């Protein structure tokens, strides 16, 4: 059995720690474990790998895989293309939701707001909903189940009423389209707060620049950008009402121990 650990992440704050790398040989004593830090080595290693762990590999690499059975991603986003491939895929959604939600609550604690809108109800959206006061909270979801929730068909109406908007959706061609200027920005309140810990690609940089330049009371807080890391002289950094932090919302203290535990659980399945 060959297990490949993809350690391609460029962000030093979310680099896979040595402790986790070291524990892999204890978890899989009979496996060949290959830790790769360069794209070319990852591409070659995937060809005859049985299992892939770590940061997402470009899907062009996965197309070369001959034996791959399962993937465990250390990210809360599963690339759209992965869902069309014949591998069993898991990720850390659920494991990291509480960290992302803590990050969002910390941002909220620094602002005054009333009507809050959560868009999407995966693990993070659900947990966030449970942590926020029910008064003035709305949740847009594909399948509404209670009085706080509404359907995507009411998207623009809900967006227009919100003081705070928190996208909790994955990036797909559908969700990307939700946040285009004509569907989203033109309906926003002039002092809206947007907290984006989902994906930088959800918003076009030009739309963000235009809206936040012309609405100085509005505020955008994010840990996800395009590209990542965001350039020091990037245009968004020129606006005082846009705050960009490193991509760390999902990586609080203890996350690596949780990931290690999850790998141990997977090992039972993979053996």
């Amino acid at each position, binding site marked *: 059995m060959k297990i490949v650990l993809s350690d*391609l992440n*460029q962000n030093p704050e979310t680099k896979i720690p040595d402790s986790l790398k070291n524990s892999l040989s204890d978890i899989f004593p009979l496996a060949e474990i290959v830790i790769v830090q*360069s*794209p*070319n080595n990852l*591409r070659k290693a995937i060809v005859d790998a049985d299992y892939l762990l770590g940061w997402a590999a*470009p*899907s*062009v*690499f996965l197309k070369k895989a001959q034996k791959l059975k399962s993937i465990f991603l250390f990210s809360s986003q599963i*690339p*759209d*293309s992965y869902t069309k491939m014949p591998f069993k895929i898991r990720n850390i959604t659920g494991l990291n939701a509480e960290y992302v939600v803590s990050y969002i609550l910390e941002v909220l604690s620094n602002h005054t707001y009333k009507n809050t809108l959560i868009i999407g109800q995966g693990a993070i959206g659900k947990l966030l909903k449970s942590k926020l006061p029910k008064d003035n909270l709305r949740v847009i979801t594909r399948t509404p189940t209670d009085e706080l929730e509404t359907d995507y068909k009411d998207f623009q109406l809900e967006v227009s009423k919100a003081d705070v908007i928190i996208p909790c959706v994955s*990036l797909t061609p559908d969700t*990307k389209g939700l946040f285009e200027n004509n569907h989203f920005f033109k309906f926003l309140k002039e002092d809206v707060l947007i907290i984006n810990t989902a994906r930088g*690609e959800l918003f*076009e*940089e*030009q739309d963000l620049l235009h809206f936040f330049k012309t609405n100085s009371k509005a505020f955008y807080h994010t840990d996800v950008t*395009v*590209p*990542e890391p965001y*350039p020091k002289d*990037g*245009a968004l950094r020129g606006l005082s009402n846009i705050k960009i932090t490193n991509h760390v919302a999902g990586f609080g203290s203890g996350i690596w121990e949780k990931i290690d535990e999850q790998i141990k659980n997977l090992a039972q399945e993979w053996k």
Partner: protein
Amino acid sequence: MNSLERLKEILKNTDDLYLRSPIEEIQPSMNLITDLGIDSLTRITIFYEITDHFEVEVDEEIAASWNTISDVTKFIEQL
């Protein structure tokens, strides 16, 4: 088909690619980072989409020197 058109065809067939500009509107002078939002991993993805398309083995280090679309099309012309 010239190298820019060839590149656009390759980009259209690349998974999980979200560029700041529609592929049809890509111009040779566009900067990969500031105009298209291409980060290092996306750059590598495009590099391997190109080399797989042409079925060649080239050192990926060359992709780090690309600044503009023109650099990418020049790379394609050399294959």
